[in-house]
């Protein structure tokens, strides 16, 4: 046991000595220089001696610096490739008020929303299960580019933002720049689909009416045409002169085309359906219309009763008493009282009575129209030829609608582009080589290394110079290990 212990101690010491000798051998040229300077310039301060030592040792110091800085520059360069930055500018009028194009509140952090990030991954062809969506969301930084945006005193709504994305390491076959461009695309798609003008009115599929009765189809077509016409007229009010260059169409000319479709084609179809009475199930349809009339009759009676009650109420009061009523009011701008003439309950009652009468009259008109349709349908023959003709007319209207939709979409898109001059634009910032290798950090690192070498030499000179050579090995290693 004791022998083993002694052997172990012996081997341990042997290893330590070997290590000490190796270190001494490697550093002996350097320590020789330092020791030499310590004795040659014995009267100088330690700082000066350290500086002179560094000058003497400039070649190995330079080699170490070049190697370390090259590796560091390479590391910074690779690191810079894993992130990308772009500047987003909002170019629509409402952006200055912090709003989206459709006047809903703008939120720059939509950029890092789950929906946008998941769309980005879908565009990149990356399975969202293979990456951590939340960590990608966290790796997106969004900063307003205008410094004033941060100041409470000078509150300012920024219309440009700097977006930075750090590429997750699990995404390997594409660059951070490309991933960021797909994030921008996903954001744009989101913005255009949710926050710009609602153009769903133009997405019209006539086939969705195929289960309806022919007369119902006429109503629905007319309603659709009215909606599109209204949309076009709103656009025409925004810009009366806008014309799409290639088709030479304007919103006004398109609205006229839709109006023509309504007043000619759809009207012609409706008249035919009423006169010829084609129906998939005539008995069922006329019964349904009769039921509608029954309900409408009740509505009519309710409206007329409401009208009569209000009329009677008004008659109970002396008109001369209620014609003018003065009430005390405050003029806030002048902070003074005055007597204002205002509406009373009787005025409201009179207005309501008018509304009820108007509604009742309209209901009565609809009842009369429905009765007329029921009579005509009952009198007509529901032949297969009439049904086919009605279908042909629908197909003709469908063709015209499709053509018009294409034209409207083309003009509308051209207008959106013209009006907004691109709602959102992105400008990629390409960092220079200086930025990529982080030159400032490299300079700092070089300065720190030089300072470190200086400190080591200074400590060596001050505390560990001279003495026994063998002892010197152990003392030499101390400052170098620091």
């Amino acid at each position, binding site marked *: 046991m004791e022998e083993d212990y002694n052997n172990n101690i012996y081997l341990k010491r042997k290893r330590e000595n070997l290590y000490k000798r190796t270190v001494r051998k490697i550093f002996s040229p350097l320590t020789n220089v330092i020791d030499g300077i310590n004795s040659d310039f014995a009267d100088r301060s330690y700082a000066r001696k350290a500086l002179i030592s560094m000058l003497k040792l400039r*070649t190995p110091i*330079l080699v170490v610096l070049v190697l370390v800085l*090259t590796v560091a520059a390479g590391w910074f360069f690779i690191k810079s490739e894993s992130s990308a930055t772009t500047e987003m500018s909002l170019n629509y009028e409402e952006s200055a008020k912090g709003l989206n194009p459709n006047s809903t509140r703008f939120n720059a952090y939509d950029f890092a929303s789950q929906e946008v990030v998941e769309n980005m991954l879908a565009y990149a*062809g990356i399975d969202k299960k293979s990456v951590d969506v939340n960590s990608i969301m966290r790796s997106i930084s969004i900063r307003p580019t205008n410094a004033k945006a941060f100041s409470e005193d000078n509150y300012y709504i920024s219309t440009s933002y700097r977006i930075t994305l750090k590429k997750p390491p699990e995404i390997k*076959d594409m660059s951070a720049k490309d991933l960021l461009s797909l994030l921008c695309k996903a954001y744009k798609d989101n913005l255009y689909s949710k926050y710009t003008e609602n153009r769903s009115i133009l997405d019209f599929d006539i086939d969705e009416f195929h289960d309806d009765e022919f007369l119902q189809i006429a109503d629905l077509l007319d309603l659709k045409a009215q909606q599109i016409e209204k949309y076009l007229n709103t656009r025409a009010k925004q810009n009366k002169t806008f014309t799409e260059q290639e*088709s030479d169409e304007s919103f006004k000319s398109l609205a006229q085309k839709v109006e023509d479709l309504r007043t000619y084609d759809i009207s012609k179809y409706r008249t035919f359906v009423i006169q010829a009475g084609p129906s998939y199930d005539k008995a069922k349809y006329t019964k349904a219309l009769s039921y509608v009339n029954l309900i409408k009759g009740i509505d009519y009676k309710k409206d007329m009763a409401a009208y009569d009650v209000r009329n009677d109420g008004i008659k109970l009061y002396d008109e001369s008493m209620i014609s003018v009523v003065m009430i005390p009011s405050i003029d806030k701008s002048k902070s003074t009282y005055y007597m204002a003439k205002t509406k009373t309950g009787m005025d409201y009652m009179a207005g309501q009575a008018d509304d009820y009468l108007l509604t009742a009259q309209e209901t009565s008109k609809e009842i009369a129209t429905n009765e007329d349709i029921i009579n005509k349908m009952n009198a007509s023959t529901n032949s297969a030829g009439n049904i086919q003709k009605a279908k042909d007319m629908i197909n003709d209207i469908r063709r015209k609608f499709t053509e018009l939709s294409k034209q409207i979409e083309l003009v509308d*898109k051209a207008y959106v582009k013209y009006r907004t001059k691109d709602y959102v634009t992105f400008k990629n910032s390409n960092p220079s080589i200086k930025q990529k290798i982080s030159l400032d950090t490299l300079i700092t690192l070089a300065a720190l290394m030089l300072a470190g070498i200086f400190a080591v030499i200074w400590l060596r000179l001050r505390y560990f110079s001279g003495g026994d050579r063998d002892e010197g090995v152990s003392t030499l290693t101390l400052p170098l290990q620091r």
Partner: protein
Amino acid sequence: MSKTKDGAEKIKRPKKKHSKLIALLLVLLFIIALAASYVAYNIFVLNKNFTVTFYQVRSLKISDNIRVVELADLHNKEYGAKNEQLVKRIQSLKPDLIFYAGDMMNYKVDDYSVLFDLSDKLCKTAPIYACFGNNELDQYLFRDKTFKDKMKEHNINILSNEAADIEVNGSTIQLIAISEGRDQFDVKTNNAQKFLNSLEPTDNCRICLTHYPELFCEYLLNRGIDIAFTGHAHGGLIRIPKVGGLYSGGEGLFPKLTEGVKTVDDGTQVVISRGLGDSTKIPRINNQPELVVVDICWY
């Protein structure tokens, strides 16, 4: 022998004569080792894999966005068994159209299995449209007259100085394909020139598929082309930062059109693929093979 202030004799230490030279050599060796490692990394790692590059171009003539995946200059290269990796990646990208911009195979190699196996799989993802590169054209003209028909049999819609109207995502695009390179354009009997002259103006988005990007310096300007898909340059083989490609067959030294999307004088947006394979023994440096994905956006 000099003396110190206190009168002691100063011992001069012998200087090592070659220390500076050795240090310089060390640094040089380090730099050479770094460069060699980078070249080896390119040859043995980067060039064995492909990267996916995404571009977005705009056309107001389409009603909905269209995604195109462009493959060029494959030169019979395989990524995984029967290009499994390539197929899988393209499937994940869900393209609306797949374009082959030429040189998918090698001239004088009569085994087309790489191209045809790839096409048989890709046609299930999206329709494939192709133009001839110099390799395919030579093969067709001088070696195998049935090559074009064989391509069609394997679901490749090959267009050679032809046009086709394609319906995609509710938009009609006119696809034209040019087979000849710059050298043949000057010949009077040139088919491409005749075809281009016979083209009628169109309101639809006109997309050109041609192997040669350099045609957009002259011959394909002012032809009403909105977007073009090209290859051929192999990214200029060796790419120097801030300079670009070093050499391309069509443009010579320091070519301009080697990668990316370039807008030429008439406003045509030319997409240039760095390609997926190699035709020379010079290795690609700083120029990884790429699969190009182009989103044509309406906004």
